[in-house]
């Protein structure tokens, strides 16, 4: 077991209401965006080509959601230190952010509690841009070691309902979750769409096992210098192999591999005319790191359809969930993503 560094934050240091040290990032340069898109393997012009962005009416290149997630993850993951573990992070995307923007990540501890002798810390967080807009409000949970105690666990058991889900997936079933009472009720949600809740959608397997080049690209793209991602000797002693930053496992293939987000769930038709489809945000939970040599399979399914009425009228939020499974069939991470569809009656 390696000795915790002197700067390792421990559970005893945390009090409810305290502020997490803020971290700034930016101005976001073109190089940062292209390097990030390269690691993620997306070549979307919206996030790289100013000429296209200006033609679309944007003021400059639009920063993609995952990039902002990466900034937040970098902040929390580094605060948690070598011995901490970023357990979950849920954020919403509220505004467009652009090339040259500067972000500041801030957070407040809302709750501290113990589980199995380790400290759990819930945080309310905000990623704010230099215009004072909150780009990404959210929450996160970090697991911390106790002073003088062992590092936070690197493996967490999936919740009970996911054990069953994984079994259904492995069996090749089309329906991998049951439709619960009260789900998918709405004027604009036809019966057929409602019955699609719980059905599996798009699945994808990584094109090759995770290699050193990919880990380094992700670490470079997200400015990660933690030993776990850079120092193979240290990483072997702690995890058995070099690991990749948390965001890596969430890379959803676009362009070369297939689809992302809402388009990964089974197709559904809503009543009325719908427009929109913006990335409303993502809830992510991690159960173990992704290691050198791992191959991840990700399977999306339709988790829920929620109808709401907002300022712009009725809308349905399409919730997709994706489970990320390694080659041993273990749950590495899961995400839940909401996509807004603004509706108008025909």
């Amino acid at each position, binding site marked *: 077991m390696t000795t915790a560094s002197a700067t390792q934050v421990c559970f005893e240091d945390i009090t409810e209401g305290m502020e997490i040290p803020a971290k700034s990032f930016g101005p976001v340069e073109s190089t940062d965006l*292209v390097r990030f898109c390269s690691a993620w393997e997306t*070549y979307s*012009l919206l996030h790289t080509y100013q000429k296209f962005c200006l033609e679309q009416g944007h003021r400059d290149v639009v920063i993609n959601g995952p990039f902002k997630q990466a900034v937040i993850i970098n902040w929390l993951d580094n605060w948690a230190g070598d011995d901490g573990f970023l357990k979950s992070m849920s954020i919403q995307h509220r505004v467009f952010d652009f090339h040259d923007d500067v972000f500041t990540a801030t957070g407040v501890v809302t709750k501290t509690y113990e589980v199995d002798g380790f400290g759990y810390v819930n945080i309310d967080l905000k990623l704010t841009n230099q215009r004072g807009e909150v780009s990404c409000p959210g929450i996160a949970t970090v697991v911390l070691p106790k002073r003088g105690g062992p590092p936070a666990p690197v493996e967490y058991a999936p919740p009970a309902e996911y054990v069953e889900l994984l079994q259904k997936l492995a069996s090749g079933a089309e329906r991998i979750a049951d439709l619960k009472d009260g789900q998918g009720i709405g004027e604009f949600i036809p019966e057929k769409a409602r019955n699609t809740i719980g059905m599996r959608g798009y699945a994808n397997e990584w094109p090759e096992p995770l290699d050193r080049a990919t880990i380094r690209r992700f670490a470079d793209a997200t400015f990660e210098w933690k030993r776990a991602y850079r120092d193979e000797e240290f990483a072997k002693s702690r995890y058995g192999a070099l690991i990749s930053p948390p965001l890596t496992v969430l890379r959803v293939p676009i362009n070369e591999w297939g689809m992302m987000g809402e388009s990964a769930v089974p197709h559904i038709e809503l009543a009325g005319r719908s427009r929109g489809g913006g990335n409303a945000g993502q809830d992510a939970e991690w159960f173990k790191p992704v290691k050198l040599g791992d191959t991840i399979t990700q399977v999306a399914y339709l988790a829920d359809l929620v109808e709401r009425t907002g300022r712009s009228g009725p809308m349905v939020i399409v919730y997709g969930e994706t489970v990320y499974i390694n080659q041993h069939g273990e749950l590495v991470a899961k995400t839940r993503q909401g996509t807004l569809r603004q509706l108008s009656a025909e």
Partner: protein
Amino acid sequence: MTEQVYFEDVKEGLEIPPFERGVVQMRDVIRFDAAVENYERLHQDYKWCLENGYPDVIFNGPIKNACLATMLTNWIGDGGWLKKLGCQHRGMDLPGNTLTATGVVTKTYEQDGMGFVDLDVKVTNQLGEVTCPGTATVILPKRDGVPVPTVFPVPAGASA
């Protein structure tokens, strides 16, 4: 799969099958930059390019060298060896340009028992501009069945 081309089949003046890279969009430029980890502003930052007097993002030169190399390795097949490729970047290419690599045999000769072929090669865009001219040398197998080596001696003058 195309058949192996042999040294005996090649004569001066032969035009080798071209490599039509097709339309290279900005997406493809970024994909190439990403593959080779080249994040130079000239090859991805539209704003910087305009500020510095360029009409658009400029293609990474190696995109064109790669077109030439791919044309040659496609032609020589599993049995050949690409020995030399030299070229100059004479003109800029912008996103949306169509690239075609072509080549013509200029000389065939034997050296150290192997069949050498020299070629003039070039990348031309849809405006007819030759933005990347060059020369190449390949070694082709002979019909005697002796495989072309994959290891070549260090030239005199290179550090040992």
